[in-house]
């Protein structure tokens, strides 16, 4: 009995890369370090350009606690600003989405701005004349914005490395699956607040081993003869992608997906990729899904789900994509409730220190059920927040590495 309890409380006898101290999912100090060290320090996908269909279109959102608006200018350029009026801090817009005319007008004292961020009008400016203050001396706070494959990324860290450098090899995968000459379009959007740490959602979505959880995946994927022949490809900054593999939808009475394939996809194939830290792109042959995350608290996470087809889709084609999307995904899909049940239950076990260590020890030469991609994710996380994933209490000095994540990346 003693022995069994000690075994439960002590770190597992595995290399330190192969398990995680669960306090990284529950600790509020670590949570704020992540906000500064990851979400405020790197690139974040905020929307797809099809969500800003015309000059003047805007989307409002929050990144690492900062309210932002993404705006398509009259020059068609997409820019991002703090959604804050520089006068006294009223929000420039109060809704999620809309279209500006020529100007953005603050609702409080009616100052106006153009879509490039210049202040174009101050009400009753005469009052500022004695102190020599005028609209020329003020404007909206710009935010770094870059677009690749129609995906709009922003960073509130002005000195952040260029997006393409950050994404590295993943740029090729993005260009293959979201090519500029075949633009995509968002047709589905929903979100949920899930009661778990944001990393558990990324972890769940990136992990292929948990396909055992899903009836649908057991029947359509795990039973496929060459299921285990695919390989993970791990890249710097912990981005990763797994080879496509064909599913057998007929096994659950669903139609096959051989026509109207999304760019770069093979018939019936499933593709999963992660852009660190939180962008999960899944393609099931005829339809794409993109998840992104907003951490709210150590045990609360808002997940946004988008479904995408091709902008050029006919009505019939879009209906097929929508159906294929909904067969598995969407709020009424078969898999989502199962994933949420799993991660929320994990979070409960981890709270109050009842369950200290999680095991990430599978080594299968980068085959689907290898945990290398998750090990790489947690190491990258640790590097950015200055902690060790296996010992949440310890701060790491400078960029020491534990070495082998599993198998070297290519």
């Amino acid at each position, binding site marked *: 009995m003693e022995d069994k309890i000690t075994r439960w409380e002590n770190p597992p006898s595995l290399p330190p890369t192969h398990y995680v101290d669960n306090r990284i999912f529950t600790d509020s100090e670590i949570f704020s370090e992540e906000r500064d060290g990851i979400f405020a320090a790197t690139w974040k996908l905020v929307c797809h350009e099809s969500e800003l269909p015309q000059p003047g279109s805007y989307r409002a959102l929050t990144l690492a606690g900062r309210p932002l608006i993404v705006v398509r200018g009259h020059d068609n350029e997409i820019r991002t600003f703090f959604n804050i009026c520089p006068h006294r801090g009223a929000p420039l817009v109060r809704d999620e989405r809309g279209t500006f005319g020529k100007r953005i007008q603050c609702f409080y004292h009616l100052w106006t701005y153009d879509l490039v961020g210049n202040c174009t009008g101050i009400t009753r400016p005469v009052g500022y004349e004695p102190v020599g203050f005028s609209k020329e001396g003020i404007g909206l706070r710009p935010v770094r914005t870059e677009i690749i494959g129609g995906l709009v990324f922003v960073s509130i860290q002005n000195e952040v490395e260029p997006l393409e450098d950050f994404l590295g090899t993943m740029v090729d995968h993005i260009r293959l699956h979201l090519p500029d000459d075949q633009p995509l379009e968002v047709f589905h959007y929903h979100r949920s607040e899930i009661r778990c740490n944001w990393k558990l959602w990324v972890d769940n979505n990136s992990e292929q081993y948990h396909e055992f959880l899903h009836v649908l995946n057991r029947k359509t994927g795990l039973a496929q003869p060459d299921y285990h022949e695919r390989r993970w490809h791990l890249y710097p900054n912990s981005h990763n992608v797994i080879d496509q593999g064909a599913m057998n939808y007929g096994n659950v009475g669903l139609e096959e997906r051989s026509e109207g394939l999304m760019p770069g996809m093979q018939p019936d194939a499933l593709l999963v990729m992660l852009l660190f830290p939180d962008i999960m792109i899944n393609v099931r042959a005829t339809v794409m899904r993109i998840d992104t995350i907003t951490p709210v608290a150590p045990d609360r996470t808002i997940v946004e789900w988008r479904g995408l087809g091709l902008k050029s889709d006919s009505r019939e084609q879009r209906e097929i994509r929508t159906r294929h999307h909904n067969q598995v995904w969407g709020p*009424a899909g078969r898999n989502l409730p199962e994933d949420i049940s799993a991660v929320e239950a994990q979070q409960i076990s981890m709270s109050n220190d009842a369950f200290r260590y999680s095991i990430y020890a599978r080594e299968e030469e980068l085959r689907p059920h290898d945990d290398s991609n998750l090990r790489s994710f947690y190491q990258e996380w640790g590097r950015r927040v200055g902690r060790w994933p296996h010992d949440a209490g310890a701060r790491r000095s400078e960029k020491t590495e534990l070495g082998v994540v599993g198998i070297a990346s290519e």
Partner: protein
Amino acid sequence: MPVNKEQTKLEDRETIRTLISSSAKFLDEGNYAHFTELFLENGRYLLVARSDEIGRDMTWLDMSRDELVVLLKESHQHVHDLAERMHIVSVDQILLDGLDNSAQVQSSFAVFRTDTAGNTQVYAVGRYRDSLERDGKDWRIKERCVNVQTRMFRTPTPTPL
């Protein structure tokens, strides 16, 4: 036995009200076989919502009765929400066609979710827009379109609302 047309209409309306409330009750009880029997053979079930974020109407489910039967038959194989659900439905409008052989019905609904610890919360609200057809003595659903206003679900599920 009905004595005149007015009485038939009243009886039809009463039958239709019962049909709508039974549909909700069967779902609450997990009695999916009875739920799907309320649909005509070529019946259809739709779940639609509006996204303010992307400014579009979305279809979340669009199934024939047969597809719905398969989905619900398999539902016990899925890891599912252990909470109980309760529908409160109010029929707002029943429009019978001239021949009294079909009807358009609009109802409002709220679904409450009671978790395993006994906490109850509103799970979803919305409207049913039902197209019904007379089927002998009974009425059955040709198409149910569930227009759901709630978009942030505490626990998503493929079980019809």
